[in-house]
């Protein structure tokens, strides 16, 4: 009976209230922890990736963050969702990793790119032929988009991935990053125009080739 309950919960973590699941994990039902983290995997991975822009590093960071979350589960107070808490731990872990790996000169470049009025000129096009989502089966297209995101300065990449890839809202993005909503909007505007500037000409060229 208990085994069946765990299996059901493992398939659908919503089956039990989050607090109940967590208290059972702390009591020793470790299997439930896997069910708890499963729905958060992509969010945690994308958050780590937004900082370190390496799939392999992001995967390792998520593993470390999940282990930390497990070990600190008795300190989770439930004033946010578990997924929010795990993503926050992941973000901190990723930033620590980046700071350790960056040379000082690399860090200073990012730090001193201010949020003032830069020249954010988009790529000027005469018209645009829509790229349908079915075209994403082409590796070339996926790689073009991924490379463009990787080229963004860290603070713009973070906001773009949280808001436009993970589809978090402005308030959630601001809370996670610890910045104002106005700052999220400013960085998002620059990130989006930079993406347009990098990607649009490439996609026009790919369209002409194909």
């Amino acid at each position, binding site marked *: 009976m208990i085994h069946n309950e765990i299996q059901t919960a493992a398939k659908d973590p919503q089956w039990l209230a989050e607090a109940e699941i967590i208290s059972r994990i702390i009591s020793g039902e470790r299997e439930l922890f896997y069910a708890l983290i499963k729905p958060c995997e992509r969010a945690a991975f994308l958050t780590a990736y937004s900082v370190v822009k390496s799939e392999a590093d992001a995967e390792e960071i998520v593993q470390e963050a999940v282990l930390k979350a497990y070990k600190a589960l008795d300190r989770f107070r439930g004033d946010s969702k578990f997924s929010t808490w795990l993503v926050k731990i992941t973000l901190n872990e990723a930033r620590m990793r980046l700071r350790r790996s960056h040379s000082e000169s690399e860090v200073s470049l990012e730090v001193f790119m201010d949020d003032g009025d830069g020249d954010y000129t988009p790529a000027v096009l005469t018209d645009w032929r829509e790229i349908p989502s079915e075209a994403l089966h082409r590796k070339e297209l996926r790689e073009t988009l991924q490379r463009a*995101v990787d080229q963004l300065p860290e603070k713009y990449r973070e906001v773009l991935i949280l808001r436009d890839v993970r589809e978090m809202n402005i308030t959630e993005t601001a809370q996670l990053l610890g910045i104002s909503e106005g700052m999220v909007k400013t960085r998002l505007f620059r990130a989006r125009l930079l993406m347009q500037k990098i990607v649009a000409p490439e996609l026009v060229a790919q369209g002409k080739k194909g």
Partner: protein
Amino acid sequence: MVLDCKHVWREISNYIDGDLDPSVRASVEEHLAHCRHCAAILDSTHNILYLIADERTFSLPIGFGERLRARLESELEKSEPASR
């Protein structure tokens, strides 16, 4: 209010999010109706955001969940679960 192209570019992100005052929105739309460059910039930005939101663009690496579970199992074998 008449907007020039640069002003419209600054508003494109908020326009996409539906986060503009009605009067600014109306001015942006009026500009877009007559400026094919800005209309193409809006369409391409919108299209690119639509493509990056698709799960195929940024998917979890193959075997991610299995490796995460294996790592957890091996680490957790070494330690007891947290207790209150």
